[in-house]
């Protein structure tokens, strides 16, 4: 990776209990598929984000396993049924072992 991965997350700041809200996430990453060849004919080794997970107040909400067919700068959206005020934590796991994280607060009005 030329640059470090920067996650971006969109969560509504406020919601009512019982609402189903959409959460949108995006992270910058090459998602190198391991299929491409460099100019010298050598295969560029695979390096993708292979797992995304979202938890709310420590409880798992949604998880995704990503394979090499996922586009660069992977986008992921999913839904959450609002219960209480708390904090989302998002984790992206890279093939190289590093983790990228983001968090955002949700207030129940």
């Amino acid at each position, binding site marked *: 990776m030329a640059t470090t991965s920067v996650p971006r997350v969109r969560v509504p700041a406020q919601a009512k209990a019982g609402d189903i809200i959409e959460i949108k996430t995006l992270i910058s990453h090459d998602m190198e598929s391991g*299929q491409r060849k460099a100019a010298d004919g050598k295969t560029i080794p695979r390096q993708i984000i292979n797992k995304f997970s979202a938890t709310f107040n420590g409880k798992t909400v949604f998880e995704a396993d*990503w394979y090499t067919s996922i586009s660069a700068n992977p*986008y992921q959206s999913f839904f959450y049924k609002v219960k209480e005020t708390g904090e989302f934590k998002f984790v992206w796991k890279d093939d190289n072992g590093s983790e990228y994280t983001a968090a955002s607060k949700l207030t129940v009005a």
Partner: protein
Amino acid sequence: MASGDRFCSRRRALQLAFAASAGLILAPRFALADANAVADEIKKLYGDKKATDGKIKLDVPQIAENGLVVPVSIDVESPMSADDYVKAVHVFADGNPLPQVFSFRFTPECGKASASTRMRLAQTQNILCIAEMSNGTLYSAKAEVKVTIGGCGG
């Protein structure tokens, strides 16, 4: 009519020649998966269990101009209650170098079993989606995406 026949056969010959050269240019330079590879992957996950059609709305474009970024959304019909929810959704592409695209794992916390992401498609191919419910039943859905420019870098 003899002259008409000759015209037709020349046109046919030209068509064949064109098709052949197009085939050479577009021939993929990497091994691609096929429907069998997808079936194998599903077997690895669920054995011989059969999936029935329905319940899934698989939203992909009919024609993708750029195979590098093809939006894909899935929406599975389910009450998403604590004892009746969608556990997992897997998507496979039978014309990519590797058949798996993603596996989503839902929980009742989600409220609805709906999610979207973006995938790469190397060529025109079928997308197969399998959903596993909390009681173990499987549902499937299939869609074809025509790809104008393949997304594998080559």
